[in-house]
């Protein structure tokens, strides 16, 4: 199955209410490509007359597996990113789905998280399981991005667990983080 088809199916797998919400905020467009995403996003932004990204941001975004470009209301996924190397077919498809759900979670968070939520990012990181928290801290996010990253990754993991009928709070996820993510993404499974 192609990466494009995997992402299309990941979209259809979202709960209807979540898809409606994403459509309502204009986050129902995506593009799967084989390019460094910072450079690509910069080209798209300039073509749309939105101006250019700072050089440092382009370099940073080039490291990304996927991007939510809020100004263009589009998710970009780099299926050729070396981080996907070595995964077998099923693992690759699952991880591509996880990445797509993650970015739709980003879109919801950026539109719906409130100022206090963003300010509480470091607090939420401290409540995460140790390995998860370490990953967020080491990935190079700015502290003001922690909240969005947590929403995106938790949402993506909730979607994965939903496949096996697990829609309640995962026991490893602090209730405060779960309730906060639920509020932001509208998770009511």
């Amino acid at each position, binding site marked *: 199955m192609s990466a494009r088809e995997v992402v299309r199916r990941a979209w259809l797998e979202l709960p209807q209410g979540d898809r409606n919400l994403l459509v309502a905020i204009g986050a129902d467009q995506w593009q799967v490509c084989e390019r460094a995403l910072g450079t690509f996003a910069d080209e798209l932004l300039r073509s749309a007359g939105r101006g250019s990204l700072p050089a440092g941001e382009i370099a940073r975004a080039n490291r990304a597996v996927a991007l939510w470009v809020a100004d263009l209301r589009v998710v970009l996924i780099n299926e050729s990113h070396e981080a996907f190397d070595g995964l077998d077919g099923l693992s690759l498809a699952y991880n591509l789905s996880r990445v797509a759900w993650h970015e739709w979670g980003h879109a919801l968070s950026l539109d719906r998280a409130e100022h206090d939520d963003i300010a509480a990012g470091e607090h939420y990181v401290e409540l995460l399981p140790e390995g998860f928290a370490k990953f967020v801290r080491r990935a190079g996010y700015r502290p003001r991005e922690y909240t969005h990253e947590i929403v995106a990754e938790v949402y993506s993991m909730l979607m994965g667990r939903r*496949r*096996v009928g697990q829609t309640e709070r995962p026991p490893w996820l602090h209730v405060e983080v779960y309730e906060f993510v639920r509020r932001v993404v509208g998770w009511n499974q």
Partner: protein
Amino acid sequence: MEPVKLPAGYLLPEGATMADVRRLELELLASEGLKIEDLQAEDGRKDDSQPQQ
């Protein structure tokens, strides 16, 4: 014109891969008795494109 909003990316720690993300998720799932293989299975997919009965 408003300044361009910075894109929100899915970043990984230096040298990390999606296989590392998978290992992390596998550990969390295992702690509650779930297997990542079940989440990856094709027949585990739900299609919510049709209204529920």
